[in-house]
């Protein structure tokens, strides 16, 4: 046994005021340090870029105010197509993704071939670059010359994105379904629910709540990947910016398109962060990090 460390108690018991003073000293010091550090890092970066030899030229081709104002309306109307595509594809992906996840979870003999197909589909779509799928669907499907199948570039591009993202999202849903403890299913069955009812009323609602943050993450990435549809020709934001840049040799419209994307993706990201933080709090996990 080691000797206990002798403690020398302060002459007077420490008061609440003394502790508060120490706390505010600590807070002031960390404010000052973070302020200085920010100025040094940001200032350094800015100086580094602004004093680079090519900066005046870059400023002219990427940050031209006149090019920005003259191209903005066509980029914005292109972006409207992005938003529409995103919203429609997102709804399709949610439905198809959940269906595939259910097919892969339910063990019904009649669904065996569907389950096999679902596995192959998910493996293939997750393993192929999205841009390739967009190409193949966008140029391959019209070449089949099928009657009644739409050939619009935006429709086919959207379909290609839905195919890819449904595969990702189905895996997110499946992970959620499998994360619900088996005792929940047992409780449902014990009430006399059928397997399907237990899934529908007990398992899936809990699974969907759990996977909401990762789902939103996939949607942020879908929102950006909508730009891939541009390779098929429809004039969405990126395409509109490219067209403008090609005719004027000024790339400012690309910056305008980037800003428009950020206007959607940053708020979405914040929502995800907020949801994740809340989920963490509900599980009591944030406490460990909240200690100073």
């Amino acid at each position, binding site marked *: 046994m080691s000797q206990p460390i002798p403690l020398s108690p302060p002459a007077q018991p420490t008061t609440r005021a003394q502790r508060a003073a120490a706390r505010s000293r600590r807070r002031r010091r960390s404010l000052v340090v973070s302020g200085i550090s920010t100025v040094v890092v940001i200032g350094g970066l800015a100086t580094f870029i602004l004093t680079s030899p090519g900066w005046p030229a870059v400023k002219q081709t990427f940050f031209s105010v006149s090019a920005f104002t003259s191209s903005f309306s066509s980029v914005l109307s292109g972006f409207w197509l992005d938003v529409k595509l995103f919203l429609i594809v997102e709804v399709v992906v949610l439905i198809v993704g959940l269906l595939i996840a259910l097919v892969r979870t339910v063990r019904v003999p009649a669904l065996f071939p569907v389950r096999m197909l679902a596995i192959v589909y998910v493996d293939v779509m997750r393993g192929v670059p999205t841009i390739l799928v967009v190409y193949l669907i966008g140029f391959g499907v019209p070449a089949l010359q099928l009657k009644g199948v739409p050939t619009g570039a935006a429709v086919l591009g959207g379909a290609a994105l839905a195919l890819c993202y449904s595969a990702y999202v189905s895996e997110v849903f499946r992970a959620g379904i499998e994360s619900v403890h088996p*005792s929940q299913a*047992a*409780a449902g069955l*014990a*009430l*006399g*629910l*059928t397997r399907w009812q237990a899934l529908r*009323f007990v398992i899936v609602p809990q699974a969907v*709540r759990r996977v909401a943050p990762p789902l939103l993450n996939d949607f942020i990435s879908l929102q950006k990947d909508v730009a891939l549809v541009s390779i098929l020709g429809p004039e969405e934001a990126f395409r509109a910016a490219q067209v403008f840049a090609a005719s004027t040799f000024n790339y400012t419209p690309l910056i305008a398109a980037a800003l428009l994307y950020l206007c959607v993706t940053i708020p979405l990201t914040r929502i995800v962060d907020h949801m994740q933080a809340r989920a963490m709090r509900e599980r009591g996990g944030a406490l460990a990090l909240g200690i100073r």
Partner: protein
Amino acid sequence: MTKSYDAQPVLKGIDLQVGEHEAIALIGASGSGKSTLLRCIDLLEEIDDGDIYLDGECITVPGLNPVPIRRRLGLVFQSFNLFPHMSVIENVVLGAVKAQRMPRSDAQERGISLLERFGLADRRADYPDKLSGGQQQRVAIARALVTNPRALLLDEVTSALDPELVGEVLAVIRGLKQEGMTMIIATHEMTFASEVADLVCFLESGRIVESGPPQQLFSAPARAETQRFLARVLTARG
């Protein structure tokens, strides 16, 4: 009847009869097969050899749909297993509405009267995580009762509770016994078992070693295994 998980035998020949309005207590160490027996009776597990009868009807015929049978039995779990995404009243009525196809208003009415009886009517809109363990377990019992089961299977319903919350759950079960509910109760509460049960069965490694009326089994156990178990449990209580 017998039951194995893979090659591991869990129940090695259980022979048990429960009469109407009877309460049977299953006692025995953890792993003796009490929970498995209850899960087998509710057809959550498939048994290997033997048969189980409910109201004279064999419910373990191979290929029989277990769902309608489960609707005639109620099972309450050690860890409550309430549905966390539903309020208390939604938990209670789900089985009645979806499994029994009872009209929602009837189910609601029945659910509320059960909650009132268990002193939980004012908590009906709360979610399970806002309730104490004892309250959650009383909700779970209400949930199992809402469909008017022929028998109630209680799987160590007080084992996950803080000691001061055990009493409120036992009081509920005592009330059910007085009403004549048929029950099979797996429990570690020996005093409670001796008070409520008509018959106490002592299980050890998948067998009913000894069974008898509580006075006899607790005061004069015939088998050495039972004596050992009771001595261990009662000294642990101090």
